[in-house]
């Protein structure tokens, strides 16, 4: 009798130790998995820090020579050791701003079309097609820019734009070469448009159906629903989408290196050749004339990084402010 009871308690005891051991194993495995996964996240944060550090380190020569005034200097003459970022910064900003102006209206219109105006079957086809536009490699777009868009700009667009908008400083008389800031703007517009369209579509889809239904029940037309309900509730998301598109435009390198002309000027006339931060690095990075030249290019990359961080930050602040308002 007593032996039977003891064997039973033994069995219970065994069961318990197994559970304890299993729990301990699970606890260890949990901790291990947590640490392994955390390591990946930490790695990404470290990479961001490393990028910043390495660029500052690489640019130290140029930083110590020019300081922050580097971005205002207009000369870029490697052989005379004269470097400045202004023409490139100007080219980056002006091409990005103009492409954003072109792409925002079109992109929002496409976003609206895909999210609320088109029949579902049409949106299911057109949506992916628009996103395909973003999948085209930038080197292919650059090639098309040189051989199709630049000649088109030179032969067809420059003269009419000059006669129509010539009073603005941006549209001067037609130039003999099609590679120009304006061609760069068109190329960037093609690249940014699908991003803004897809992002704004997703933003518009988050508008609660009841809000739209309510407006329609009050007799609003489709446009009045969009203007009175959809756009006001999504203005922050749309702004953030545009900022992300702007960031993408600022960082584009290869396609612009093909079409922007590579001239060390900051012309107000968009039909003239210019340069951008990223395109300059593409063109000259592999053959630096001297150490300061190389260091100045790292400085250009640093300026681009700062620009990119600022754009991202603005997009972030805009969305956060909106979330609080909700």
């Amino acid at each position, binding site marked *: 009798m007593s032996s039977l009871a003891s064997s039973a308690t033994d069995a219970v005891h065994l069961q318990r130790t197994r559970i304890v051991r299993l729990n301990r194993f699970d606890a260890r495995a949990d901790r291990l998995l947590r640490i392994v*996964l955390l390591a990946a996240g930490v790695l990404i944060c470290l990479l961001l820090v490393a990028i910043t550090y390495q660029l500052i380190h690489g640019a130290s020569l140029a930083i110590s020579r020019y300081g922050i005034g580097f971005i205002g200097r207009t000369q870029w003459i490697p052989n005379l050791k004269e470097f400045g970022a202004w023409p490139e910064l100007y080219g980056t900003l002006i091409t990005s701003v103009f492409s954003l102006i072109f792409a925002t209206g079109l992109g929002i219109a496409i976003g609206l079309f895909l999210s609320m105006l088109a029949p579902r079957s049409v949106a299911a086809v057109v949506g992916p097609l628009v996103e395909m536009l973003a999948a085209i490699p*930038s080197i292919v777009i650059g090639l098309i820019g040189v051989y199709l868009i630049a000649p088109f700009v030179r032969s067809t667009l420059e003269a009419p734009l000059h006669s129509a908008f010539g009073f603005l400083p941006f549209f001067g008389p037609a130039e003999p070469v099609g590679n120009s800031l304006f061609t760069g703007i068109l190329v960037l517009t093609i690249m940014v448009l699908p991003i803004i369209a897809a992002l704004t579509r997703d933003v518009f889809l988050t508008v609660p159906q009841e809000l739209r239904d309510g407006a329609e029940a009050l007799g609003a037309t489709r446009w009045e629903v969009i203007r009175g309900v959809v756009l006001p509730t999504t203005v922050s998301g749309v702004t953030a989408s545009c900022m992300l598109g702007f960031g993408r435009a600022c960082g584009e390198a290869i396609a612009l290196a093909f079409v922007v002309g590579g001239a060390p000027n900051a012309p107000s006339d968009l039909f003239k050749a210019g340069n951008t931060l990223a395109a300059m690095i593409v063109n000259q990075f592999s053959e630096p004339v001297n150490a300061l030249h190389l260091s100045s290019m790292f400085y250009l990359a640093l300026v681009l990084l700062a620009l990119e961080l600022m754009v991202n930050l603005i997009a972030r602040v805009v969305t956060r402010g909106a979330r609080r308002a909700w």
Partner: protein
Amino acid sequence: MSAIADPAHALTPSGNLVRRQFVSRLVLAGAVGAAALAVAVLGILVFYTGLKGAGQLSLTFFTGQLPSYNGVGGGLGPALVGTIELSLFATVIALPIGVMTALFVSEFARPRVAAVLETALDLMAGMPSIIIGVFVVLLIVDNFQQSVIAAAVALSMVEVPLIARATLVSLSRVPKPLREAADALGVARWRITLGVVLPTSANSILTATVLAVARAAGETAPILFTCSVFTQAYAVNPLHSVPSMPVEILTLAESEYPAAISKAWGAAFLLMFTILIVNICARLWLNRSRRKRGL
């Protein structure tokens, strides 16, 4: 009496309503026009590239060694092999890091930590690819040499945020009852994560990876300074540079020889079509698997 006799009268818009409906239709037409314009631009780009490049495709184009400086003879075999190798290496690096980060953010991290990591992912996603290329030059190439490894690290930095973002989205779609059921059965956290949550979203992660590979395969800027010293021959040694499609297109396009430029178009056509077709297939596959699971 006659006004009542016409029952349609009250339903016919008049005055202000006519104007409002006109404005609405005008906007609708504008939106349709914008969408049509985007599709037309896509059509023109694809058609023009096909027009210029499709004629180049032949057996030697796929298998021959790279053409000489003037673009005469040869094909793009080494560049094809090189691009496949680069994509493979980059994905081997990027897939685990991307998925692990996403798993940490969605399953383990506290809200504040998750927010920090999501910001980091956003910043990585917005990082210009030329900066990634320059960074890898400083990090690896300056200390060793240009190599497949260096370029793969650069390309993986393009892929990680794409994979992580898509994985996060698909993890957030894993039905809550599934987790709760596993929890109720006393399954440990690690086993829920690896045995329930991850397999449920495996399909979407796979699709996202394919899309990320398609994106990386067409990137030029990250590999331009990290993997561009190569000869005309086939090369696969990961400790040295290999030829790749984007860099070869750039090289051919920059030379002024007509034969080289024709070859560049052929390569651009091949690269673009492969990427577009992979994109279409991945999306179709994703839609199908989503429909199957009723999500």
